[in-house]
C-alpha cells in the first residue's frame, strides 16, 4: 500500500464530499437570510402603517383596540421570524455535521479499498 498515494486520495475524497454540501448550504443560507431580512423590513413597515391608521381613529376604544392588534400582529410575526432564523442555524449545523460525516466516510472508503487491495482479499 502506497501511503502517500492513499493519503492524497483520502484527502481528495473527503474534500469532494464536503464541497457538495458546502455549495448547497451556501445557496440555501444566502437566500433564506435575504428572505427573512426582507420579511422583517416589511413587518416593520406594516406595524408603522397599522399604528398610524389607529391614530386616525376618533373613538378612543377603537384606537386602543387597533393598536393592540397591531402590536400582537407584529409580536407574533417577529417571533415566527426568530424561530425561522434559528431554524436556518439548526439546518446549517446539521449540514456541517453531514458534510463532516461524508468527508470522513469518503476518506475511510479510500483507506478500506487500499487495505483490501494490499492484502488481496476483501478484509474490510
Amino acid at each position, binding site marked *: 500500500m502506497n501511503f502517500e498515494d492513499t493519503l492524497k486520495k483520502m484527502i481528495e475524497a473527503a474534500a469532494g464530499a464536503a464541497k457538495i454540501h458546502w455549495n448547497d448550504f451556501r445557496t440555501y443560507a444566502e437566500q433564506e437570510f435575504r428572505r427573512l431580512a426582507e420579511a422583517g423590513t416589511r413587518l416593520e413597515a406594516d406595524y408603522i402603517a397599522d399604528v398610524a391608521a389607529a391614530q386616525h381613529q376618533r373613538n378612543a376604544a377603537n384606537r386602543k383596540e387597533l393598536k393592540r392588534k397591531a402590536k400582537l400582529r407584529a409580536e407574533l410575526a417577529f417571533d415566527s421570524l426568530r424561530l425561522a432564523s434559528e431554524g436556518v442555524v439548526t439546518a446549517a449545523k446539521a449540514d456541517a455535521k453531514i458534510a463532516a*460525516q461524508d468527508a470522513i466516510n469518503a476518506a475511510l472508503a479510500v483507506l478500506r479499498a487500499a487495505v483490501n487491495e494490499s492484502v488481496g482479499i476483501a*478484509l474490510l
Partner: protein
Amino acid sequence: MVTRSEERRDAYVKSMQLTNTITSSGGRLTDRRQIRGRIFTGAALLLPLLLVGCAVIFVSSYDEITDREIQEAAKTTEVLIGDVLANQTSYHEHAKEYREIDGALGALEMRAANYQKNEAEIELLQKTRAALRNLQRTHKEIGPFRVAEAEGVRSLFRSLIHHELAKKRSAGIGGPTQ
C-alpha cells in the same frame, strides 16, 4: 546466618517470579510485560482496521416517509396561505386545515424521535409547529394574515426540506441509509 523471615521473603520473591513467567506452547518463556506489550501492539494495529471497517454517523439517516410527509404538509400549508392571501378567507374556513397540519407535524415529530442523532429534524419540526401556531393565532384573533407574517412558517418548511435533501444527498454520497 539466614533468619526465618529472610527465608520467607526469598520464597515469596521466587514464587512471584514463577507466576510472572509463562511457558508458551513452543516451550519459550516470556514474561507478562512482553505479553502485555504484544497485546497493546496488536490492539493498536487492529483499531485502525476496525475503524476503517465502520462508517461514522453524526446525523441520522434519510427517511423517505418523513421526507414525503414533510412535502405533503408543506403543500397543504402553501394552499392555505395562498388562499388567505388571495381571497382574505376567514379563520373558520381553514380551522380544520390548521389542525391537520399540526397533527401531521406532531406525528412526524414522534417518528423523528425514534431515530438517534436526529435532534436537528426534531428541533425544526417543533419550531415549524410553533410558527404555525403564531400564524393561526393571528388569523383567529386579528383576521387574515399578510404575506410577511407567513414568511416564518414558509422559511421553516424550506429549512426542513433542505435538511431532508442534505440527508438524501448524503445517502447518495455514501452516508447512512434506511
